[in-house]
């Protein structure tokens, strides 16, 4: 699954650690999601979407 997490994070000038703190997960989790190594659960995807004030579909996509 592809995602725009890195772009959204960069727009806010947050480091991975900043985003991890806001999501209450480890920095490794943010890195794994950003690099596509790990797809978050639905509850975490909702938390991410809520943090960026957008929809899940606007962040995650199954299209290349």
């Amino acid at each position, binding site marked *: 699954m592809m995602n725009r997490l890195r772009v959204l994070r960069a727009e806010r000038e947050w480091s991975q650690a900043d985003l991890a703190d806001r999501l*209450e*997960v*480890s*920095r*490794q*989790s943010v*890195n*794994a*999601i950003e690099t596509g*190594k*790990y797809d*978050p*659960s639905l509850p*975490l995807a909702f938390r991410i979407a809520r943090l960026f004030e957008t929809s899940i579909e606007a962040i995650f996509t199954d299209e290349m």
Partner: protein
Amino acid sequence: MRCSPQWLQKTPSARRYAFRLSWAMFAYVLLSLGLAYLSLHGFHPKGLVAYLFAVLPAIAIIATLVSGGMYLGEETDEFQRHLFVQSILWGVGGIMVLTSVWGWLQIYTHITHYFTIWTFPFFLVFQSVTWQTLRWRNR
């Protein structure tokens, strides 16, 4: 200030797991060596007492499994949980491969007998090495 590399730093629940695991393994070593010492010095109980003493180290093994289960229940970081579950699968796979290969070697060669009490320590080694490797790869 933390001195360890970031990938080695643990979540609070992982630290609690490490603490519980250390105590369980300490108890396992102590009970195993204690029983061996008593046995070598003429302590050979009979009946129900013999059974009770024989399974004492297994209680420590159960404690390590329970501590792993508690970690999975307490870990709030789902990615860290995912890595731990993956390492358990690698541990199970590793021990299945080892015992299968050893079993066939026992049939067709003169390799020493495999004692099943080694199964859990080998599993724990496979699982722990894989867990740290996965954490390092995802640092």
